[in-house]
């Protein structure tokens, strides 16, 4: 898989209008520029397109080609400038937002990059497969840097399933899984091996190759078992392979290393709940986790679910309402909330939540845009955090 894009996307543009004059006319310049580009004479093409857009700043096609050539040459500041003009002169320029996001990433304007990627996603993530892949990958790097790890992994997961082990993907997944708020270009070199081992395990897990997952995860724990997030990570890898006892043991080890690890507590709470063994311990873990991370929807979901099992429907509904507020697009939260309302005899609310659940579930599977999915923890990522 190649993350660098080679692009000369063909867009449906109208022919530039003809003009007359003694110096090269706009239409002559545009024709020569296109010819130079087609003949791979890129310095000439750049000069000609620049002259053409200088003559006619509203010529969006010229800006597009200029941006594309600069991007192809890794000249991101210039590409960024050209794509900005393109977007300004072409209201339907949806795919260009992805390119703008990529240029902003490369010039280290990370907030701007995030904004452009969001805009692009809101427009339905248009573009060809390679653009979508590259844009999602870089967006995932930014989500990791921002601390939105489940969302980052949601985006990386698909690439891992599709392409398997790849050094860049491994590094990206390692950072996200170990909850390191860095991009690959700026994390401490001494953490490289740790990131590589975690990333390799995660990529193989995404392809259901659990033998290799455990091989890398074991190496990770052997050398870095005293670091935060490492046992939590291994626990999650065990969970993916339905090795629940081993997973639980790792989550407990994580709490020895990092006593305030909310995600490990949530996993322990859910593990206790699903095994129906220790509901009171499950409740303790969930309560501690929500106190530590009050904005983590999964914590409220876990607590609400456990309270419901203990027959405390009123308190359960309160927790699940909070979870729904924090992750409105998470279908499982609405399902559980509906059950709590039913217990409380709130029939209309129950019916409403079930309708939301049904719509959301279908939408998550079929219609949801990545941006919508990223609002909450999607169903297939339940175990991510």
């Amino acid at each position: 898989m190649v993350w660098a894009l080679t692009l000369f996307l063909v867009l449906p543009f109208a022919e530039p209008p003809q003009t007359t004059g003694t110096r090269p006319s706009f239409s002559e310049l545009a024709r020569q520029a296109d010819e130079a580009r087609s003949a791979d004479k890129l310095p000439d093409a750049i000069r000609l397109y620049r002259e053409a857009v200088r003559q006619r700043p509203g010529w969006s096609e010229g800006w597009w080609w200029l941006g594309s050539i600069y991007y192809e040459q890794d000249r991101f500041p210039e590409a960024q400038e050209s794509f900005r003009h393109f977007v300004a002169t072409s209201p339907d320029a949806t795919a260009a937002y992805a390119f703008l996001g990529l240029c902003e990433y490369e010039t280290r304007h990370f907030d701007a990059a995030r904004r452009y990627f969001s805009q692009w996603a809101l427009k339905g993530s248009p573009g060809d497969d390679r653009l979508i892949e590259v844009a999602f990958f870089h967006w995932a790097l930014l989500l990791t840097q921002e601390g939105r790890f489940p969302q980052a992994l949601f985006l990386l997961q698909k690439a891992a399933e599709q392409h398997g082990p790849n050094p860049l993907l491994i590094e990206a997944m390692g950072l996200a899984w170990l909850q390191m708020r860095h991009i690959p270009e700026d994390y401490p070199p001494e953490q490289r091996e740790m990131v590589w081992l975690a990333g390799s395990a995660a990529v193989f897990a995404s392809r259901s190759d659990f033998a290799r997952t455990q091989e890398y995860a074991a190496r990770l724990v052997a050398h870095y078992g005293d670091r935060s997030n490492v046992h939590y990570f291994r626990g999650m890898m065990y969970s993916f392979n339905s090795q629940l006892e081993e997973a639980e043991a790792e989550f407990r080890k994580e709490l020895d290393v990092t006593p305030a690890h909310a995600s490990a507590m949530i996993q322990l709470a859910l593990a206790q709940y699903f095994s129906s063994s220790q509901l009171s311990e499950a409740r303790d873990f969930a309560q501690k986790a929500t106190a530590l991370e009050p904005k983590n929807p999964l914590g409220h979901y876990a607590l609400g679910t456990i309270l419901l099992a203990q027959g405390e429907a009123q308190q359960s509904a309160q927790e699940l309402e909070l979870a729904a507020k924090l992750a409105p697009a998470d279908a499982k939260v609405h399902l559980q909330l509906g059950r709590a309302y039913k217990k409380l005899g709130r029939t209309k609310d129950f019916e409403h939540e079930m309708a939301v659940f049904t719509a959301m579930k279908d939408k998550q599977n079929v219609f949801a845009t990545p941006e919508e999915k990223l609002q909450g923890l999607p169903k297939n990522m339940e175990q991510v955090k």
Partner: protein
Amino acid sequence: MMLRAAVLAWALALAVPSFSADTKPAATFEQVSRAAKAARDQNQDAEAIRLFRQGLRLKPDWDEGLWYLGTLLYEKEEFAEARDLLRHFVAQNPKSGPGWAILALSEYHTREYQRSLEHLQRCQTYGVGDRKELADSVFYVVAVLLTRLEQYDDAMTLLFQLRSAGQAEANIIEPLGLAALRMPLLPAEIPQDRRPMIRMAGAGALALEGQHREEAEQKFRDMTAAYPDEPGVHFLLGAFLLDERPENGISEMKRELEISPSHLAARLRLAQEYIRQQNFGAALPLAQQALELDPKDPSAHMVLGETLVGKGGLTAGIHELETARDLAPDLTRIRWDLVRAYTAADRGEDAQREKQEIEKLNQQNAKPE
């Protein structure tokens, strides 16, 4: 630092004839460019940088300005800005090997490793003339980046070439150890607790390459004694022993596979030893598992093909060998396997065709570079 100093020395050596310094305010591009070059010739770096920037504002595509400002900024460790200027430079001078080299080295410092490797390889296509120091730097960085990007065998080949070309052993040992142990790290990323292990692996590999077999064995034995549970160490000792005392080599390979079951090279090397011993029954599961680990690996298809042919499964064996040949058309060993298999299957024409291809490959390989 040594690398950057070499680059600067070389860039300065390319200096065009000097002009008299003119640091007065300059209005025209000609005046500014003359003053910039003069300042550079007189080692007034700060002034040269200011004037080159001024010149590039007046004429953004100015090649000399892009080049000299790029190299000056590289020397000042302003790698991101140097990188941007050199990207512009190589876009206008796509066959400039030195341009690609300094660009790639800038990208190495900004940790854009994949891009850096691609650009270094482009530099190798165009060459850097007779600038040996720069060429050595390029080779070295290519080798460490190949390891970082998990292309270990290519990295080792390059590192051995560097050693043959006179590169100091001290510079090679750690990169070689990393590649030999299949750890995708830069030397600067080596964990302290395993630096000695990596150095032992590198030293052993160098000794082996230099035909100092006793020394190599000692290094590998010291390494396995000190780090018995680390992935890769038994493979290195095992690969050595398979040539010397095969039964001991087999034991080491088996130990390696207990520690790291996904070690593809260990699985293949062990299967090849069983093939050599005509023990195709033992080779078969190893070859099949290797292919499961990496279905696109030509060696895995080759070893499976050799095993199947050895067991009498000509049709299936030929199929695997043909797949291997398609994945690695330049490997003559696969083609020799096919010649033998086609002959055994009474497919004389196919065998003849493979022989012709081998002849062509041999001629290509015999051509002087």
